């Protein structure tokens, strides 16, 4: 008679043992500040044999679709979406790879068999996700009319200024406490935010003629189901010990903000600015998946354990209303330092944006008017320069200091222990103050390129096409003629670090600490 899942699970768990040939501190390598009980629960009760069968079936179905898509090529992919996927897929594959490393650390540091099994399976899942995204990237590189940008996607994930937002997030994940990283990734980012992109945008992918991305997103998310359960199981295990309550609260206070600015914000932009055939707005998706489903359907219920609303939740709620629009003017305004062609919004979309975000035209309309006037390389006007140059970037999250909205930016430049630092918000400054060493080493765009001519920055990044002089990035899908390095050089834009300017003013006896004045 076949044993039930529950019976088999209990039996297999009993095979675990504490080895005598190695000291626990050598076995676990890293310590954690959390108190981890010996027993836990895994709601999925994952067995390797069934897991492999299930994952093989997923791969068979998905790669059959990929192969068919290569042969048939009948969908009419929306160019704006296909260009946007250069940025999305380059960053996503890097994030998934970092999650592999996070789960390896957590599997090693956490003792209960039930949780360890879930984490080790997640290591395999995250490698799978990395490969799924790389294969989607490769498919698009081979079939899309303009492969430039797809071909350097992995390089760009490591060196692009926009990717710094995601790089700083995953570096925080990979280096923080090994139990904190589990709560941050699984119990927060994967449960709250991954649905916005991988479910919410899957229909947008279909509407944009990209079935490869639809299938990639939905099959990735099927593994997230188990990851959410890993996070929940870990959280419930930790809540059994009251000493963990303040540590969990602290983790949620940090990662509610960090996950929002580092993961949700860059992803929200796609719904509003990279989908011409409009579906739900980014804010509508966030309201549903984050505020209602995550905070309302899960987080609120932790009150009975003494977990309070995250400290910066009011700031998150406000930020969510504007962040996709502010992120868009950053991306489009800094177009020369990205690696895809841009397709600006049209009148019909402006009407839609005003309807979805009342007041949008007042705060963002002028930028888009200016953008449309500065796309011709022969006119010699670069929007990045004409709008005053790139702003300072947050030392913690690497967002530019224009959020939640440029006219009400919460950015600040301050001195701490002899260093001049910039932060996007009170929340990031709070995160920094808790653990300054963790964030001090990140080299920002200005650390690397202050004083450079923008043309030399683009060359150093490697964002030129095969001829060595035409930019990969263009301000339009089909500009009158493509911008080249010589066009950028003619604009005479020198990268100037706002922190350098601030320090010079300080030396001259000028500016005091405080918030940036607009």
């Amino acid at each position, binding site marked *: 008679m076949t044993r039930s899942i529950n019976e088999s699970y209990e039996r297999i768990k009993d095979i675990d043992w504490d080895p005598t040939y190695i000291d626990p501190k050598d076995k676990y390598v890293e310590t954690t500040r959390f108190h981890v009980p010996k027993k836990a629960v895994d709601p999925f009760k994952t067995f390797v044999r069934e*897991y492999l069968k299930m994952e093989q079936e997923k791969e068979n179905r998905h790669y059959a679709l990929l192969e068919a898509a290569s042969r048939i090529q009948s969908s009419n992919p929306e160019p704006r979406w296909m260009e946007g996927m250069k940025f999305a897929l380059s960053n996503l594959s890097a994030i998934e790879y970092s999650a592999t490393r996070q789960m390896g650390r957590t599997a090693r540091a956490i003792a209960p068999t039930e949780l360890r099994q879930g984490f080790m399976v997640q290591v395999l899942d995250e490698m799978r996700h990395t490969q799924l995204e790389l294969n989607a990237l490769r498919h698009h590189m081979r079939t899309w009319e303009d492969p430039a940008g797809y071909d350097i996607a992995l390089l760009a994930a490591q060196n692009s200024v926009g990717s710094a937002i995601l790089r700083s997030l995953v570096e925080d994940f990979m280096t923080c406490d090994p139990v904190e990283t589990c709560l941050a990734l699984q119990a927060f980012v994967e449960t709250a935010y991954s649905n916005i992109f*991988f*479910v919410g945008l899957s229909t947008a992918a279909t509407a944009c003629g990209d079935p490869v991305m639809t299938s990639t997103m939905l099959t990735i998310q099927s593994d997230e189901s188990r990851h959410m359960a890993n996070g929940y199981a870990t959280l419930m295990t930790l809540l059994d010990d009251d000493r963990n309550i303040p540590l969990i609260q602290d983790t949620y206070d940090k990662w509610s903000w960090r996950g929002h600015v580092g993961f949700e914000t860059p992803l929200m932009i796609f719904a509003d600015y990279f989908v011409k055939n409009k579906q739900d707005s980014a804010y509508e998706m966030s309201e549903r998946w984050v505020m209602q489903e995550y905070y309302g*359907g899960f987080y609120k219920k932790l009150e009975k354990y003494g977990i309070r609303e995250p400290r910066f939740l*009011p700031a998150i709620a406000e930020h969510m209303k504007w962040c996709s629009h502010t992120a868009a003017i950053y991306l489009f305004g800094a177009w020369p330092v990205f690696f895809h062609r841009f397709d600006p919004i049209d009148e019909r979309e402006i009407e839609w944006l005003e309807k979805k975000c009342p007041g949008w035209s007042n705060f963002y309309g002028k930028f888009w008017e200016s953008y449309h006037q500065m796309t011709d390389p022969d006119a010699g006007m670069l929007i990045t320069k004409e709008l005053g140059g790139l702003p300072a970037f947050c030392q913690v999250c690497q967002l530019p200091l224009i959020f939640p909205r440029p006219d009400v930016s919460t950015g600040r430049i301050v001195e701490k222990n002899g260093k001049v630092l910039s932060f996007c918000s009170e929340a990031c400054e709070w995160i920094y103050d808790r653990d300054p060493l963790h964030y001090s080493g990140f080299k920002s765009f200005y650390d690397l390129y202050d004083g450079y001519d923008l043309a030399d920055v683009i060359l150093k990044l490697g964002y030129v096409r095969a001829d060595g002089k035409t930019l990969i990035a263009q301000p339009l899908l089909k500009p009158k003629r493509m911008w080249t390095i010589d066009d950028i050089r003619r604009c005479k834009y020198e990268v100037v670090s706002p922190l350098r300017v601030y320090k010079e003013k300080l030396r001259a006896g000028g500016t005091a600490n405080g918030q940036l004045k607009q």
Partner: protein
Amino acid sequence: MADKGLISESNKVTMILMGGEEAGAVAEVVGESQPGVTITNHGAYIEIEADRDLHVDLPKVSERLGRPYGVETFLVILSSYVGRINVDDRTVSLSTEIG
């Protein structure tokens, strides 16, 4: 919207199933056994929403499809969910309860 603070508690549970024949069969079986559920077909995925809990009886889905259909095959198409999940030999369930 909020009773206390910014968050209103929700007791909704949701399953997101990759669109296709199997998702259609699951939606039909669940719709018949739990009449209060809301089923929305988004094309790329089918969404099944319920109040407080949701159960998928896999032997019934197997019968509907006319072929063997077990937990690991169902989990291939379960893209996401809202709620707390429990998996055993014959059912996959969601609940709004914590702890």
